[in-house]
């Protein structure tokens, strides 16, 4: 058995044992690291600053190192296009003819669309500002699919911004340093993206699993998706704008619906980061970020000042004889069957509303309604 031969040699501790102790200590440290890195939200991660520091260093290094790779890639592309020139020429001519037909149709539809929008006074979405960035590092492992782009907070990039390539969505920004941003791809095992099927308008959650084709989960409705259906962002949740192209639905080897991403067909060197924060950009940020709650719609002046959530008067049971005495909590109106919606609203003077924080949950309402809700 081997022993140490340095100044601690007198201890005569077998080296295999000390190695085992070091191994156990390191395992404990690694477990502690994993447990401490359970990020509920990317913004609150305690490791964010470390990640930012690494990204700040890695981005310029990757930028420099990837330059010969881009040249090489460009050279191969050039060679490939040279050999396939004749076939590509025929294909492009066919595509051009088809594109001209589509363009004519699109122009007519756009004019009609604009006219109808004007008639209906529909507010159109403003154009989103974008930041163009170059991908300098591309993690392709099964446990993390993320990229590093060379534009950061210095160029106005923030956490949560969606990122697209020239063909479609690739992911969103999850970490930002002054000169770099880390993009979580749609394929990542922790990525969840609300999408919709363009043909059926069915909603689904695009769930990454580390493979090239993320799954379509939580599909609802009859025949919601078919092979080749176009998949777009639905805009639900406010992370992505609605209608960005994602890919096409395909049946996976495991029988599940998956998506062949449009962005996979494009070179990934350049990406565009959309400076889309939330729907307040579309709906009018001033109204949504002012912090002032909208005025309460209620029949009772006393409740107006107390920020009580108003119950729709159409659901109020009409008191047949008299109102309950003051101090008695009125019955929760949410428990009222819909058939009573036609009941005439209660008279204003008969509403004995005491300011209360919020109505109880609907599930508990019937039990509480029995003793207090009926007339005395």
């Amino acid at each position, binding site marked *: 058995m*081997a*022993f140490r*031969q340095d100044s601690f040699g007198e201890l005569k501790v077998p*080296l*295999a044992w*000390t*190695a*085992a102790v*070091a*191994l156990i*200590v*390191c*395992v404990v*440290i*690694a*477990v*502690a*690291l*994993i447990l401490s*890195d*359970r*990020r509920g939200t990317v913004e609150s991660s305690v*490791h964010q600053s*470390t*990640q930012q520091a*690494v990204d700040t260093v*890695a981005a310029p*290094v*990757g930028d420099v*190192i*990837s330059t010969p*790779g*881009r040249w*090489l*890639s460009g050279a*191969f592309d050039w060679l*490939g296009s040279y050999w396939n020139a004749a076939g590509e020429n025929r294909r492009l001519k066919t595509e051009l003819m088809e594109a001209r037909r589509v363009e004519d149709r699109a122009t007519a539809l756009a004019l009609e669309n604009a006219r109808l929008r004007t008639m209906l006074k529909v507010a159109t979405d403003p154009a989103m500002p974008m930041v163009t960035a170059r991908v*300098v*590092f*591309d*993690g*392709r*492992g*099964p*446990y*993390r699919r*993320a*990229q590093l782009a060379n534009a950061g907070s210095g160029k106005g990039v923030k956490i949560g911004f969606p990122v697209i390539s020239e063909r479609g969505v690739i992911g969103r920004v*999850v*970490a930002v340093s002054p000169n770099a941003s880390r993009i*979580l791809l749609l394929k990542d*095992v*922790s990525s969840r993206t609300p999408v919709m099927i363009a043909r059926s308008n069915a909603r689904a959650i695009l769930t990454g*699993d*580390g*493979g*090239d084709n993320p799954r379509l989960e939580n599909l609802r409705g009859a025949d919601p998706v078919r092979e080749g259906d176009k998949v777009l962002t639905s805009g639900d949740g406010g992370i992505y704008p609605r209608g960005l192209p994602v890919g096409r639905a395909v049946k996976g080897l495991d029988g599940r619906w998956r998506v062949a991403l449009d962005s996979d067909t494009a*070179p*990934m*060197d350049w990406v565009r980061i959309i400076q889309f924060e939330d729907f307040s950009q579309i709906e009018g940020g001033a109204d949504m970020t002012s912090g002032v709650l909208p005025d309460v719609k209620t029949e009772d002046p006393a409740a107006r000042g107390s920020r009580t959530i108003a119950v729709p008067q159409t659901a109020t049971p009409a008191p047949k004889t008299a109102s309950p005495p003051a101090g008695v909590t009125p019955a929760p109106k949410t428990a009222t069957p819909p058939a009573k919606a036609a009941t005439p609203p209660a008279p204003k003077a008969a509403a004995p509303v005491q300011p209360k924080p919020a109505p109880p949950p609907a599930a508990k309402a019937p039990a509480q309604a029995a003793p207090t809700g009926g007339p005395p």
Partner: protein
Amino acid sequence: MSFQAARPLDPWRWMGAPALICLGATLLLGLPFRLLGLQLPEPVFPMICVFSWAVIRPSILSPIVILLIGIVLDLLWGGPLGLWGLSMLVGYGLTLSMRAMMLGQSRMMMWAWYAGVCAVVQLAGYLFTMLAFQHSPNVLAVIWQLLATSLLYPFAHRLIDRFDDADVRFR
């Protein structure tokens, strides 16, 4: 045999330099490079170190360096901190515990052992990721990375060949 005859290994030669080379190779393979539309594979280069260090000799420094490499991988790839460190330490511990069985075997058998250790590391990564994200990663992607990593054994063999006789106490 007297201990005076033993020639201690220089940690920089058998640990520092290989670790840096593996991290450099990881950085190179992480570049956004496509050849005729195909992406390059992404093997776990540090598995070369994990396997060969355990085979060459037990050491106090090895687990520490493996943990540090794992943390660098996590920061580089953007994964949860500690994922690769823990997974590779599982592989290192397994190799260390089975070292007596592996020593002296043929190159092909050692390759098979290496592939087995890589599979255990991938399995550990799979389970830890599943626990962390409550969602199972794609098995095909895991197998693809396992295959790419298993093909790196010749580099591990070269490292073992170069250093396993350097310290006669561990023959």
